[in-house]
């Protein structure tokens, strides 16, 4: 099943073709969770190919779109089986920055990988991130920035989480054009993703680790 889905998605088949394939799988009593798992494996494969330079940004965006459509189609079937999602992620572009292309691709990829993603949008003030962490209790908080000038805002959000006693309750990952691994460490993030496929890997990594003990 994994190979068939991989071929359909990598071949950037027509959305209807993929939809019919899933309908058939479900009609044949395939476990929807198995399709979700196949989708996850497909995205990891896509990630590896993108890292190797075998795929272009537009391929990645198209595959992300197709995969998120598959995830949407499967959502009611998964809910019925009560198999649940991987977890919850709150994400947004930090205050002072209104760029969202990278963030939106990351969201599509994460949704396709089975995560429940809450998008706070762009130009999100630190207080709004804090409020969302308090209320939504996500496993991961994703902070995005395109401008070098707004990178410091990521640090402000992390400090605000600390001030509100929430830092140990959520993993923070950062990403965006000016962000590097070094900068992510300096501002106290738990992970850094250089693109949308790396985001899946990093989210899986940080959520599989034990939470830090104060």
């Amino acid at each position, binding site marked *: 099943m994994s190979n068939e889905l991989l071929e359909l998605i990598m071949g*950037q088949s027509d959305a209807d073709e993929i939809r019919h394939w899933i309908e058939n799988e479900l009609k044949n009593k395939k476990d929807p969770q198995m399709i979700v798992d196949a989708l996850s494996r497909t995205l990891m494969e896509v990630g590896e190919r993108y890292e190797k330079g075998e795929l*272009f*940004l*537009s391929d990645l965006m198209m595959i992300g*779109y197709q995969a998120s459509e598959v995830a949407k189609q499967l959502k009611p079937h998964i809910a019925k089986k009560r198999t649940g999602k991987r977890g919850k992620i709150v994400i947004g572009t930090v205050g002072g920055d*209104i760029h969202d292309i990278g963030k939106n691709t990351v969201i599509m990829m994460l949704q396709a990988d089975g995560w429940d993603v809450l998008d706070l949008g762009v130009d999100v003030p630190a207080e709004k991130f804090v409020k969302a962490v308090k209320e939504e209790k996500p496993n991961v908080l994703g902070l995005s920035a395109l*401008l070098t*000038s*707004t*990178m410091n805002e990521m640090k402000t959000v992390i400090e605000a989480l600390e001030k509100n006693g929430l830092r140990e309750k959520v993993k923070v990952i950062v990403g965006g054009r000016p962000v590097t691994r070094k900068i992510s460490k300096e501002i106290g993030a738990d992970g850094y993703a250089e693109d949308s496929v790396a985001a899946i890997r990093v989210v899986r990594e940080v959520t599989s680790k034990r939470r830090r003990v104060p």
Partner: protein
Amino acid sequence: MNSKERVLKTLQFEEPDRVPITELDVDVPLMEAITGDSFPYAVSLQTPIITDRSLERKRVDLKLKCYRKIGFDLFPIDLSTPDGWKPRSDPEENMIDLWGRVMKLDKTTKAWVPYSTVFTEPEDYDGFEMPDPEAPGWTFALEHAKKEIAGECALASFIRDPFAHAWEIFTPMKFVLWMHREPGFIRRVIEDITDFNIAIIKQVTEVGVDLVISGGDYCDAKGPMVPTAFFREVIFPNLKKQEEAARRADVKFIKHTDGNINQLLVDLAGIVDGLHSLDPSASVDIGKIKKEYGDRLVLIGNISVDNLAVKGRSDIRDEVRNCIKIASPGGGHILSSSNSWAAGAKLENCLTLVETGRKYGIYPIRL
């Protein structure tokens, strides 16, 4: 030798008295810091938006004052809005530009940034009244700059690449979706915008410019944003048409793009007269390009904009010296950052770029 002569000699692959220095643009907050003047109106790097001619004149004057104070050798200026055009707003007070981009105001950089689009489906394009290149007013800022500069420095017209235009006016996701589902439609849009640009190139060269610079990115940090086959089938033939329009007027045509351009270099070297940005943070090696294409491509760059924001003055000094050492000998190199002086860049680093360029860029290069 004045700034204009310095740039013109460089464009002919000859060594002037020193390496010319410029920036494609400087964000308004930095221009305000440099000049001490304030400009309380938002601008846009992607599209003309200022309709009030006295404000448009002020915009050009601020940039001129800034470029004179720094001592830049080349003055790039973008298009103005055509006479009589008024922007529309959507219910959330976002602005809709001439091409259907929905723009949001970025308060940090005091700039309007493409955020969304008025186009829901490809069919909407045919019902949308696209701007008329023959309308009067597009060259208002250019004509004002030309009069003020009066030959003291070189003048460039900055236009927008048809691919980048289409990518932004539809939003990246819709562009990609429609490129897959209706490639003929995307091709048609890029051809339409190319026709628009050719008409504009004719006008700006009639005003009198020393070069045309086409803005808009082809690549991200990893490589081309769309498949190379699409570049070769659709984007490059249209790029070539624009270069030919500039060549007919005996004006050099420079392509700006950020990102890792390595896969596109062979094609670009056969089409354009020069490249701007050459971003070292995206694995672009200006020394390697100089060796392979230094006799036919003018290179404009390549001090990392990221370093201007985060590193110290001595790092910038080292980077500029190295850049001059490998890219400047023989001419054909204009020193600049790998994009523009963005609001996040440290002003002291930007000034160090210029100071070091003046000190070590004297021909013959002795580094």
